[in-house]
């Protein structure tokens, strides 16, 4: 019964009268730009993160800091030195992630082939692939009001599942590869369903149980690699056997160059994104997920089985993380899986899901951005510290997660429906 709800509930008949003409497009657009809606908050978060990154680049460079000490006698020194360090860092990030201008010149001169031009893109897509899948895993759980912190553990189990099927079976690729991928999904689903089942049966909070399961998975991986069953027969360090050739994910751009690592898992990830979108918007299962996520009391009153929804949602979420694991295990090629293969993809999935606001489209975009940052940072080092990529990611997420902060800093207007903050129930 606040003034706002009164206004909005009784509003329609008034506005329909058309007493006020619709403002011109540019005015509407200008209003949109100065409003704290979720699109503009994301855009401003990215911009502000890059500004903060620039400041830190300037501060952390000794030579540039030196020029600032005599700023008032020769300000151009400090400004141009700062510009140089910031622009060169961001340009080299761009060159490592999207397009390298040197390669372009060499291609024009005939010293590089077309595949070399695609290399940065390939690296970005390779890094983005598992992030799309883990982001979807976390995002789907978010929609049911669940916070799946356990994507890392589910990814590890999925990796092991795909690996085992990958080297134990001898079959043609057309059968073997889907089987290995499926094994990864099933292993992830089984591991992911555990916290959902515990929540449904006992009320145990999924955050606590999935964190614990992450530890179990990580330590299980260390032990599993050292077992005779999994350990590489030819190498002494902690590395598993490689999967058979028939289970290796084919490289998408192989004919253009052996160094183009992006493989068929990318298509799998995009297909998963479309599937999750379809599930959420078109299926009764997705309807139930969203209903339970918004209001479990009303859902229960309407006859939905809350506990079962938790368990199945966590299972599907785990399957998506397991697919990410399969993509890693089946994508490494002739090398085996090590304790390092999983990196932090599961945890990064949380930030990807947050940045994508738990929407499949947003998650794909966020994963591509993070993949690009990672690829750019790896290729730009040591000239640009690798931490700058981590820092940018962290700052972006910080702003995204706190729209009120962005709104206050930039003095944006509150949008009609209020600020959108993504949160899991109970936290």
């Amino acid at each position: 019964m606040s003034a706002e709800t009164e206004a909005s509930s009784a509003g329609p008949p008034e506005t329909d009268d058309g007493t006020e003409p619709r403002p011109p497009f540019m005015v509407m657009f200008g209003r949109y730009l100065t409003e704290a809606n979720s699109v503009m908050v994301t855009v401003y978060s990215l911009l502000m993160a890059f500004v903060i990154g620039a400041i830190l680049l300037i501060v952390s460079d000794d030579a540039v800091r030196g020029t600032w000490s005599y700023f008032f006698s020769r300000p151009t020194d400090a400004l141009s030195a700062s510009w140089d360090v910031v622009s060169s860092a961001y340009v080299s990030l761009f060159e490592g992630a999207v397009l390298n201008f040197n390669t372009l010149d060499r291609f024009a001169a005939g010293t590089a082939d077309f595949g070399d031009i695609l290399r940065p893109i390939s690296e970005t897509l390779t890094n983005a692939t598992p992030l799309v899948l883990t982001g979807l895993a976390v995002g789907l759980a978010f929609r049911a009001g669940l916070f799946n912190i356990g994507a890392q553990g589910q990814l590890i189990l999925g990796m092991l599942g795909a690996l085992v099927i990958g080297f134990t079976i001898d079959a043609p690729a057309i059968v073997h590869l889907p089987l290995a991928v499926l094994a990864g999904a099933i292993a992830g689903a089984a591991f992911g369903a555990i916290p959902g089942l515990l929540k449904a049966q006992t009320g145990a909070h999924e955050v606590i149980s999935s964190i614990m399961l992450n530890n179990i998975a990580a330590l299980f991986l260390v032990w599993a690699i050292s077992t005779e069953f999994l350990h590489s027969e030819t190498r002494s360090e902690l590395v598993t056997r490689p999967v058979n050739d028939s289970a290796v994910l084919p490289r998408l751009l192989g004919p253009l160059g052996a160094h183009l690592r992006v493989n068929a898992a990318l298509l799998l990830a995009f297909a998963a994104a479309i599937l999750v979108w379809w599930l959420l918007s078109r299926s009764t299962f997705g309807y139930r997920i969203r209903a339970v996520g918004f209001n479990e009391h009303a859902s229960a009153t309407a006859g939905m089985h809350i506990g079962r929804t938790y368990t199945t949602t966590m299972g599907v979420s785990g399957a998506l993380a397991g697919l990410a694991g399969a993509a890693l295990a089946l994508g490494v090629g002739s090398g085996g899986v090590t304790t390092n293969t999983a990196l932090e993809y599961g945890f990064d999935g949380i930030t990807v899901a947050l940045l994508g606001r738990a929407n499949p489209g947003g998650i794909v975009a966020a994963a591509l951005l993070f993949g690009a940052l990672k690829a750019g940072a790896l290729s730009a080092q040591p000239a640009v510290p690798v931490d700058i990529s981590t820092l940018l990611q962290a700052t972006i997420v910080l702003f995204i997660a706190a729209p009120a902060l962005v709104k206050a800093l930039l003095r944006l207007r509150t949008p009609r429906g209020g600020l959108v903050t993504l949160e899991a129930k109970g936290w």
Partner: protein
Amino acid sequence: MRLELQGLTKKFGSFTADDDIDLVVEPGQIHAVLGENGAGKSTLMNMLYGILKPTSGKILIDGEPVEFSGPGDAIAAGIGMVHQHFKLVGPFSVADNVQLGREHTRAAGVLSARAARQAVRDVSEQYGLHLDPDAICEDLPVGVQQRIEIVKALSGPKTELLILDEPTAVLTPAEIRELLGIMRSLADSGTSILFISHKLKEVQAVADTVTVIRRGKVVAELEPSASETEMASAMVGREVALTVDKTPAEPGEPRLEVRDLTVVNDAGVKVLNGLDLTVHAGEIVGLAGIEGNGQTELARAVLGLLHPDRGSIAVDGVNVARLSPAARIDAGLGYIPEDRARDGVITEFTVAENLVLNQYRNEPYAKHGVTDAAAVRERAVDSIAEFDIRTQSPNEPVASLSGGNQQKVIIAREFSRPRRLLVAAQPTRGVDVGATEFIHSRLIAERDTGTGVLLISSELDEIYALADRIAVIYNGRIVGEVGPETPRESIGRLMVGAEAPEPDAQDAEASETPPTDAAPPETETSSTSTQDSATPDTEMPDAPTPDASGPDADEDDATNGGDRER
């Protein structure tokens, strides 16, 4: 204090919430502002209290124009407000809550608990509002919490005008009666009161003058002696039937048979204690009782959300104990939950999605797990037309609808599928006159199609208007089943357990709340014989409760009964 509003207007963009409102509150007067949900009452009060700035127009206090830039200014000018939703800190004591924002401190900012307690006692005694300063807020009944809010508002530096925004929405009948008494005695001691409401009987009972607003405009100035029909018509803007036309019921075979139903809650209290109840096809059974006597649990047990510890529930002669809520819904059980926002709708979902909330997986709305968006939309378009749901489109989130229209969404959902039994819990709570009229006529029509209807309502008026048979619940059991012509006094007596076999309910809390409360407002309430809440109280002296002395004790009894359930 004399308050005058001159041409007060508030616009939100192109929408005018309040348009040129003129209003005068004389000193010591209770001025009721009557209007439907969304009429602009709350906007008006928020302007008065400094929360919103008027677009144009003037507020005059004792003839002087004032401008408020925030509630602080309004408080300083002598205006106190009791919000519809209480703004209390649950775990704090009464004294801590009252001094919130203007803490009594000694040197170096140390809180002075004694001064705070004394301040509460001073205000309490001055206005005859008894409160224990050391009681913890969240442990107190809702009516007492509201008293805290009133004391809080009155303990401003020089509060002379009190704004009460829909103060009775959350109260039990007995608490409502007491509140009205408090209001009268405050007015008699010189405080002006602006009373926002859409409940006609309360306005008639307590107001000195009535202003009706509709769509942001003042449409009528009435005397409280005006008839209910007159007030309702002014509010809604058309003729309203306050009585429901219905033919005698033609009960058929039993639809719902509840036998010996017992539910023990987590605290080990028997919230339902051997309850027996039968609802036949084609009749409305009204379940009367003070809230908290097991009504909620009974409804949840019938739906299958609560598992009974003993007893049986049969629908159409079939024991449903092993059926899930979904199976019971599919078997034709309809349910209108009492807490709309919590159990009835998903406010983030669209109108269309909410209309299929319990059928989303059934044909024609879905096939093989795939939602048929066209069928859902078609259904929404039909329901919006049939049930007159006021929404911009089927794709609006339900949160943007008024309370009455949200309730219509629930009604439409439950009435648009085959059903054999309907459990309607507080179906018109927080719903305005126009929508109430509509819902009542739909319930009667529902009965006439042969559905068995269990109507759970804390408003005796609603029970009388609709029920063919009245069952009274007290302490988790049915203490009487009577016909619809039974006088209010008898039902009121049953509701407070006066004729119940267990007279041990009265002693627990009665000693904590000595009967030094507001003067009994007999004059106001007894003049309006239809005041349903009056019945339990006026009857109490007859009841076998040795320690009951006056209306307060009755109130304690009522809340006691309620507390024991929790």
